[in-house]
């Protein structure tokens, strides 16, 4: 991977973190001038991506750029250090921000949402926080940006401002803040006190300080896994379906990519760099949490099947898919970690496609329920084709990128001797087929039922009409197509991705 980076990667880190904040002020200044405001968002997103790409390619070449912001007290600092996993997460987040910004333009204007300036500003802050999470070099830095992400996205969840949004936002904030401060923070402090450091270190930092069989290991792991509420491991998942009151671009980007991936990314990082996979598997503390993750995969899928609201169904599907990453981390072997890490990337693209399609359907036809979608595929063939591809990727069928994580996870489960996990993974894929693929099939092959909401109220939705077709506006349509194509491209790029992520597996593979 070669890319002519404009700056030294250390400098790029600073710039990439500052640019979204500058962009936020730009958006604020351009308040009333819609086109300039969205222009600022897009330019900010592009510049950020370009800078992140510089960091990414440097990491691909073996660099580990570091940066110290503050030293709070000796041994306790706010600092960054980019590893392959963080580089990958930051690349996905900043890259999909561009696509999501395009989509937001189509969606927010298409539905005449209010407070659009605040919306774009919060997005910029959320990206800043996500990048901070991705690159944090220790637990304290991770925690700070984690909280910043919660606070900045709270305003996005409650965007509509009505009572339902307020309630959803309250649950969102309550669970995410409560778990992070109540469980994650004590775990972090305990880690510092036990080991004297909280730096993410290859091979983990707990090995010398705790005995393998100690109950403290299991307690600490529990505090971490449930403390990172953004990973949405059951039973700490209920904030995610409640967050679906947000406008669809928020659900698409934050609750399929940035926020939830920040959570599972954190779980992965803590498993690999704080506990260390060897220590974790030797301690046996991972096993109960592996089962919780497996259980979470199946139960969330089962709940998803019963959801008629399209976004709610996708939300539960996300809960299920996120547990794959936690499962990978808890398998605590190299293939599990590899599978989990890949899932972060693959699921991001696939699920974002699905959410953006759901939004497009809402913009063009004001439909939110799965039962209303019959026959709609003939009116929106492009949208549903993208949906179909995204769904195939989530299910894990070739030639979609979503296949690989499942493959590696199964190998990991076999390595760990957990055959039941392989069965769970297979069963989950079947459930995915039922609740996800049924949607485009219904849309393409069944007769239309019910009335078309948009025709009825005719509330000035902007659509592309061509003969019998009635697609969402261009900016709503292009992004899901791009991400759908992305899932196919990732299928073929898996070799590069594997080589890129290999160093995090440590000695034997690195």
């Amino acid at each position, binding site marked *: 991977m070669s890319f002519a980076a404009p700056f030294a990667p250390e400098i790029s880190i600073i710039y990439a973190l500052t640019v979204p904040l500058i962009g936020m002020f730009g958006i604020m200044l351009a308040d009333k001038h819609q086109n300039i405001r969205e222009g600022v968002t897009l330019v900010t997103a592009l510049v950020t991506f370009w800078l992140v790409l510089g960091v990414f390619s440097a990491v691909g070449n073996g660099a580990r750029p570091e940066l110290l912001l*503050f*030293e*709070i*007290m*000796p041994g*306790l600092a*706010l600092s960054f250090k980019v590893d392959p996993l963080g580089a990958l997460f930051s690349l996905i987040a900043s890259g999909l921000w561009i696509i999501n910004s395009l989509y937001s333009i189509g969606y927010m204007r298409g539905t005449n949402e209010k407070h659009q300036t605040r919306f774009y500003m919060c997005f910029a802050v959320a990206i800043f926080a996500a990048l901070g999470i991705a690159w944090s070099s220790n637990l*304290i830095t991770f*925690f*700070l940006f984690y*909280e910043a992400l919660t606070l900045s996205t709270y305003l996005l969840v409650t965007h509509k401002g009505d*009572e339902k949004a*307020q309630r959803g*936002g*309250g649950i969102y*904030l*309550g669970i995410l*803040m*409560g778990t992070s*401060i*109540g469980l994650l*923070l*004590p775990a972090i*402090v*305990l880690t*510092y*006190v*036990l080991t004297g450091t909280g730096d993410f270190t290859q091979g983990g930092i707990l090995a010398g300080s705790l005995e393998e069989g100690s109950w403290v290991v299991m307690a600490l792991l529990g505090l971490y896994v449930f403390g990172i509420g953004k990973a949405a491991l059951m039973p700490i998942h209920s904030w995610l379906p409640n967050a679906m009151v947000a406008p669809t671009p928020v659900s698409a980007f934050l609750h399929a990519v940035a926020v939830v991936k920040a959570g599972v990314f954190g779980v992965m990082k803590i498993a690999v760099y704080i506990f260390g996979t060897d220590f974790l598997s030797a301690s046996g503390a991972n096993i109960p949490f592996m089962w919780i993750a497996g259980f979470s995969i199946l139960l969330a899928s089962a709940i998803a099947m019963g959801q008629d609201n399209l976004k709610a169904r996708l939300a539960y599907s996300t809960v299920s898919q996120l547990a794959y990453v936690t499962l990978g981390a808890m398998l605590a072997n190299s293939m599990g970690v590899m599978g989990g890490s890949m899932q972060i990337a693959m699921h991001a693209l696939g699920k974002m496609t699905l959410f953006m399609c759901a939004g497009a359907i809402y913009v063009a036809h004001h439909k939110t329920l799965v039962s209303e979608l019959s026959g709609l595929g003939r009116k929106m063939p492009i949208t549903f084709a993208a949906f179909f591809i995204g769904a195939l990727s989530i299910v894990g069928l070739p030639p979609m990128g979503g296949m690989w994580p499942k493959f590696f996870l199964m190998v990991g489960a076999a390595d760990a001797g957990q055959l039941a996990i392989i069965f769970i993974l297979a069963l989950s894929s079947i459930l995915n087929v039922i609740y996800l693929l049924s949607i485009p099939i219904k849309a393409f092959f069944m007769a239309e039922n019910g009335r078309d909401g948009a025709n009825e109220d005719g509330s000035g939705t902007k659509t592309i009409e061509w003969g019998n077709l009635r697609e969402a506006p261009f900016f709503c349509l292009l992004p899901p197509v791009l991400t759908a194509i992305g899932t196919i491209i990732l299928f073929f790029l898996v070799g590069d991705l594997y080589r890129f992520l290999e160093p995090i597996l440590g000695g034997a593979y690195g």
Partner: protein
Amino acid sequence: MDFFAQLPALPVVVPFVAAPMALLMPPGRIPWLWAVLVSWVSFGLSLLLLEQVWVNGPVTYAMGGWAAPLGIIYYIDLANALVLSLVTGIAAVVFPYAYNSVRDEINHGQTPGFYTALLLCLAGLIGVTMTGDAFNVFVFLEVSSLATYTLVAMGAGRDRRALTAAFNYLVMGTIGATFFVIGIGLLYQATGTLNMLDLHERLAGQDNRLVKAAFAFIITGLGLKLAMLPLHLWLPPAYTYAPSAITAFLAATATKVAVYIMLRFLFTVFGFDFPFLKVALDFFLVLGIAGMFIASLAAVFQDDVKMLLAYSSVAQIGYMLLGISLGTVDGVAASLIHVVNHAFIKAALFMAVGIVVLRLGSHQLRAFQGLATRMPWTSWGIVVAGLSLVGVPATVGFVSKFALLSAVFAKGGTMEIIAGFLILASSLLAVIYMMRVIKVMLQPVPTDGPFAGPVAAPPLTMRLMLWIMVGVNIYFGLQAQPVIAIAQKAAATLLGVDSGEAF
């Protein structure tokens, strides 16, 4: 005589002389300006003194030129220089803040009296902190306490319950002071001196019933003053019904000074040579933990935000006692760090509540409904200070908890490790009660009831001072080394251990 030779006397002399002058001024803005000026001058002098002590070591000053056994000696080492800077620093921020709040809550004609009492209270607290004479501590403690009873009672203009709160406080406070002075009297009987350093030398090796009784009297008396758990009942009503600015000032200073003087008596006067000290420290461990939980639990169920924060203050005293009870340099340093940091936190929170009281006329939780929409800046102030109280990184609260936990685990006994986990668990209670407040603030603005209707923006000075205090919470949360270094050195001096151990 040059300025620096007299410097140790000035922080206490300046407010003392200034206080009666405020009484002669016409009501309104002028006494306030005077008080602000005095607080800033005192703060400046304190910082100079802190610098001098940091560079040159402890300073001794004989009041009126009378030398040690006869005269009153001011003895300033890092521990009191730190607390002194804290008290005057808080005054320098809270006094400017007070103007609008006082104009709203206090009778116009009473303002000169109010600022006189305020300056006397400040002078008393400074005196307690600086003096090296045990009886002089009692005198200044009473100066500040009497002023405080008056100030709390002045809340009666807004809520008559301030009178009973002040009366309760007066009775309890006076009992505390009496216990304290009995203890001092017994010590005098045992040693024939009142100078703290002298006392320490002459108490060495004495372990008779007289000294034990003196110790018990002093600790109980001070326990009342600092609201140690079973003796805390005066504090919540006093804080709740006092005028807003007074609550902010007292919560950040009065109990903190009492904690300091407790440290001074425990370690400088008695010290580890005194066998009974160990017993007291174990006692503190239990009381500290009990305070953390019982008071936090009480805070969870309060529907009055000032009451909630007051109970939280009692709980935080528990953390300080826990730090003291370890009896190690790290533990005492953690306690001092928390004294400073908790002052920042509570000052900010009570100042924010004061702004709400000014605009909505109530500190009930219901009045906070929709605050996030109505007063976004004040609300953010509450959120940041609340996170600091909980102990989130990048705020001072985290530094405190971290220092305390490190000290607890470094000590390493079974009791201590259990205490460490209990600290973590009790932080959860802080999450719960702060979350309650924040959740109410996030609700939509009420459309009917007493708190409906538009609300004018709070005065700029109040918001500015609030945000300076919030900024201090963040600044020292990110740059913790100065406070930690001073506290570490101060603790080492208090315990008579060679300093130089890194944190």
